[in-house]
């Protein structure tokens, strides 16, 4: 193990390490803590210059007021309306593509696979104008569905990479044995491979949820009004309205960050498994 386990060092080193951990964490998360505290700071504190001390009381009314005085509830709802169909659509498509590329040897297999891989790296801006025009002509401009459609297509690239690598690591004998038994190809997919893909599906579901929830660029390009914008774009426009109202900006930020954070803590193992794909061989 590297570095040398701290238990093997002297007691002084161990105590030092136990102190260093929370201190380092405090510094690391300082911007987050600051915003969390500001989100419950009453506006009177900000007015009187109390920016960093303890809030004079916990102003939960900041959270109430962002929901009553701004469309943030609507933005959150829109985010779900984009994110959930994207997760479902992407997983459906990439299970199919991953199966095709992971199981069958055919001409063009590697070429198609690397097309999906390369597509992941493309800068969004080169897609922007045509995708916006396309969404417009499909009648889906400024709708959550139009946004979800693009996300499904784009994320299929990343998910195919993941699924294909996962499937090609499955034991081939399983599929060969099924074929000898005369099991049809689609049945092999449905009854044999799909049940084995559960961990990959779980990992991608949390990952895609977070990516799409946090997307800002496409939200600003494809949606324009409060009735369709997801929370990232909404927060950006609220930030323009709440000039210097840091207690409201902070409360809004915390609310916007909450769903992916909860998702992460509930599904941590899957999340990290998805993210570190390829980091070990």
């Amino acid at each position: 193990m590297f570095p040398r386990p701290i238990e093997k060092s002297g007691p002084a080193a161990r105590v030092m390490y136990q102190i260093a951990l929370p201190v380092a964490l405090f510094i690391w998360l300082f911007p987050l803590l600051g915003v969390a505290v500001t989100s419950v700071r009453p506006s009177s504190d900000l007015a009187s210059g109390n920016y960093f001390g303890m809030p004079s009381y916990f102003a939960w009314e900041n959270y109430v007021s962002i929901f009553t005085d701004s469309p943030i509830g609507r933005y959150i709802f829109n985010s779900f309306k984009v994110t959930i169909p994207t997760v479902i659509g992407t997983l459906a498509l990439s299970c199919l593509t991953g199966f095709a590329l992971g199981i069958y040897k055919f001409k063009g297999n590697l070429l198609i696979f690397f097309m999906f891989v390369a597509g992941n790296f493309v800068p969004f801006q080169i897609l922007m104008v045509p995708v916006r025009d396309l969404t417009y002509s499909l009648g889906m401009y400024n709708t959550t569905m139009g946004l979800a459609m693009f996300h499904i297509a784009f994320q299929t690239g990343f998910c195919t990479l993941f699924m294909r690598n996962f499937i090609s690591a499955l034991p081939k004998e399983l599929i060969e044995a099924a074929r000898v038994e005369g099991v049809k190809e689609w049945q092999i997919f449905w009854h044999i491979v799909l049940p084995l893909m559960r961990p990959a599906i779980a990992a991608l579901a949390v990952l895609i949820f977070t990516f799409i929830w946090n997307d800002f660029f496409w939200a600003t390009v494809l949606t324009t009004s409060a009735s369709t914008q997801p929370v990232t774009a909404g927060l950006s426009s609220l930030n323009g309205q709440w000039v210097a109202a840091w207690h409201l900006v902070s409360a809004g930020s915390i609310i916007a960050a909450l769903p992916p954070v909860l998702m992460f803590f509930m599904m941590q193992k899957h999340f990290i498994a998805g993210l570190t794909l390829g980091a070990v061989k």
Partner: protein
Amino acid sequence: MSMSSTNRQSRTWWQKNQQTLTPWLFLTPGLLMFAVYVVWPIFASFQISFYDYDGLSTKEYIGTANYSELWSDRAFKTSLYNNVIWLVLYMLAVPLGLMIAIFLNQTVRGIRIYKSLFFFPFVISQVVVGLMFAWFYAPNFGLLYKVIEFFTGKGIAILASPHYATYGIIAAGLWPQIAYVMILYLTGLNNVSPDQVEAARLDGAKGFKMLWYVILPQLRPATFIAVVVTVIGALRSFDLVSIMTNGGPFGSTRVLSYYMYEQALSEYGFRMGYGAAIAVVLFGIMMFFISGFVWKMIRDERGMS
């Protein structure tokens, strides 16, 4: 014997070709979506970059005029220059992420919670990260402002200064990026062969020498991915610029991704042709890196099978 041969003849066309056709049937929906929303738009953008197009009226072919305009556009040069700064400074995420990973790669009680809390910034939207750092940098009361004021007697409003604003944004971007790299290395360190480490220890290797000669070679897959995601992250730097400064002050924090958006789709005008030309340049830069990455991946893939 005869049974099986009649069986073979009576197999339908579908049964005979099942194994060749199935992969294509499975690929069709995904390929179709990907072709329509990702592959075709790349070519379409190349085409649009030769037109004068405002997104509504008909396009007018103007040859390479957009590109020659770029050549003399100061804002474009600033953006390009800032992209280089982003790329160089963003690379700091790799060693810094490795440092934190090494710091946290212990087995003391509660370390798992520490690891996930250190990873936290990556889970948060860049919009929120941008707002957090804007608060941290805020003039007059922001903590960084106060700290600088304490040491030098005069605070600096980072995001209002054409000299510092880009660095301020990059620092904000590094925060989640370091967390990402850290988690890649933590996974990598978890898989370092204990035998080799022990053997090297017996040979007297320790500290930096151990890291450089024994550990890092084993972390190569993690390093590769860390570099790839960091390069992509640096070139995709749109969200933070948009949230923290809108490209300002005086356009000093523009990067190509933001400048493209500004030209093509903001209140400053709908110059989609010109925007597409900027996107093509950005695409070219990204292609330079992608082709390297994909080339390495293909080589690995061939080597494996």
